[in-house]
């Protein structure tokens, strides 16, 4: 019997689904019901004329578990396509965060300086607060949030990872 690889790895999986009622609940229920973990999940309609939505799931597991996850997803009736972007060539992964920092004086100026270094944009400003918009890898977002903590971080909202394969091919 071939000895299966035992180490769990992080995988980004793209799922194309019919945008019908309950489809997200099916996907999430499958993960919780079968004990798979979800590190991040994003979903939005990407092709309104065909009622298609795209779900990006970041999960982790051994190759056997990841293969199961793909097969189980593929078995759901409203699912069109399942692709493991991590194993099927190079990919681009991005996440967007909105980060609210409140304060006055030097910390406020400092937060703006750091935001500039990270190429974050200010999308809302009051006399005592900023909302920054930051796009990038999850690690970059984490680093920015850490730096904002002593400077008056009050709120963080993140999208979770979206991903797409590099090169000319569609999903």
């Amino acid at each position: 019997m071939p000895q299966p690889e035992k180490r769990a790895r992080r995988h980004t999986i793209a799922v194309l689904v019919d945008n019908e009622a309950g489809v997200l609940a099916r996907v999430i229920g499958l993960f919780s019901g079968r004990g798979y973990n979800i590190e991040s999940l994003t979903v939005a309609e990407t092709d309104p004329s065909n009622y298609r939505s795209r779900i990006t799931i970041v999960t982790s597991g051994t190759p056997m578990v990841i293969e199961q996850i793909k097969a189980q997803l593929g078995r759901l009736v409203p699912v069109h396509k399942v692709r493991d972007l991590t194993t099927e060539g190079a990919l681009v992964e991005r996440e967007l965060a909105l980060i609210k920092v409140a304060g006055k004086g030097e910390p406020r100026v400092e937060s703006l300086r750091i935001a500039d270094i990270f190429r974050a944009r200010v999308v809302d400003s009051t006399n005592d607060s900023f909302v920054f918009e930051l796009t990038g890898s999850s690690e970059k977002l984490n680093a920015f949030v850490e730096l904002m903590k002593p400077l008056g971080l009050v709120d963080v909202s993140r999208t979770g990872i979206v991903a797409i394969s590099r090169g000319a091919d569609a999903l």
Partner: protein
Amino acid sequence: MTGAEMIIRALLDQGVDVVFGYPGGAVLPIYDAIFGQNKLRHILVRHEQGAVHAAEGYARSTGKVGVVLVTSGPGATNAVTGLTDALMDSVPIVCITGQVATHLIGNDAFQEADTTGITRPCTKHNYLIKRADDVARVVHEAFYVSRSGRPGPVVIDMPKDIQMAKGKYVGPEKVVHRTYQPRVKGDSAAIERAVKLIADAKKPIFYAGGGVINSGPAASKRLIELARLTGVPVTNTLMGLGGFPGSDPQFIGMLGMHGTYEANLAMHDCDVMVCVGARFDDRITGRLDAFSPKSKKIHIDIDPSSINKNVSVDVPIVGDVGSVLEDMIAIWKRDGLSADKNALKAWWKKIDEWRGRDCLRYEQTDSTIKPQYAIERLYAMTKDRETFITTEVGQHQMWAAQFYKFESPNHWMTSGGLGTMGYGMPAAIGVQLAHPDALVVDIAGEASILMCIQELSTAVQYSLPIKIFILNNEYMGMVRQWQELLHGGRYSESYSAALPDFVKLAEAFHAKGLRASRPEDVDGLIEEMLNTDGPVVADIMVDPTENCFPMIPSGSAHNEMILGAADVNRREVSDAGKALV
């Protein structure tokens, strides 16, 4: 047409002739539409769980989709056990549930339940219809999804206002599913590799499951043909019984936890295993890391998620079992292949040695009826007529699987995956409706039968002459057996206290009751049972202490079987094993 009328029309267009159901407030318009026609027959059950099991019996014995109609709220929640059972055993069911009117959904209305939410994990797919114009399409899609690929239950939740609203009907030929197109044809390169492996094998085995039954009678014929061509021994799973003839010399019995010694040892020692429409369930494999360690494994399954789930295989083939077997036969003939005759001869010699252990042996004494004996007599006295067997769940189920021999598919209905006590009698009702002239016997235990005993009333109402063959050992026998073997003989709550008098119970339902307590009475009882026109409850008082052997204790390997009572003390079950179900 109204939504309710479209439901009836769509069912008829799908070829449905019988619906199992129970009325209620939220399905009254559909019942009104049933009242106004006489093509679709409605069978009134006594509990919605019974409706689903009856539809399962109907479906498994015919290969058609079984249809259920229940009301909202408790009607739907009562159906959940049956739906889960159908999902686990891949039985095609379409279940229509009533729902409160669309404007009331989410308001905790009377008899409201989130039916699509509750049934999402226990159905292959489900729908909530929100527009009358969708009714016909959804029904046709539901039938397609239910019977295609790996079959399973589909729920259609139908709000009451949609049942009454007018909509446009479309026929089944106009409905094509946008996404769901399961793969039927297996990959030809993989099939070539598989055939090569079989031809080169020294100790091959076919391990065939419920997929052979689900694929249809042609798959079973091809399995027999391939077995003849190759000379390979065949074992069946519980769900696969009848997929290969039970009295065939190439058949080495059922495998798994209560399978035969020869089947399990052959699985353990084989060098090439061909899994045909089975899923390496834990009841089959025993301890996974010791499962058939030396074999190359070929796995044919229509469901890609069954492959490499529990056991890594060398040659996965996604496709319909019947189609793949046909391709294998064609390649075998095309290349004029033949098996390694000498190796196979040695392999069969080994298997015959194992067979020589006579692992199903039991000792019938003069005083008490052994349950195995009762089933052997039932088999002897019914095998020459068309007989369908259903079971409940427990020891009697395993004995039925071991001692009743099935020669063709679709004649054996049992709850394998979910293990649902109470399955057998409603299933028998469904089978009898589909096969009015055949003999249908529910081999039952006294505990299981009480879980859906109310359906006896259904059998009587429709004059369905089902025979309920209770092996009454006054215990939840399998629970008692595990408590004896794994929990120091502490029989916690497994004694069937305060049992009803089954003969009087049958009479109270206007059925016939019979009882046998001594071995010499068994034949007479069976004869009387078979000669009675209507439903019969036969209460056979059997040895309460008999255990079901052979047995692979949980957490053990195939070559660590307990062969009989004398063998028990040699086996210590580990704590890890005890933690398994």
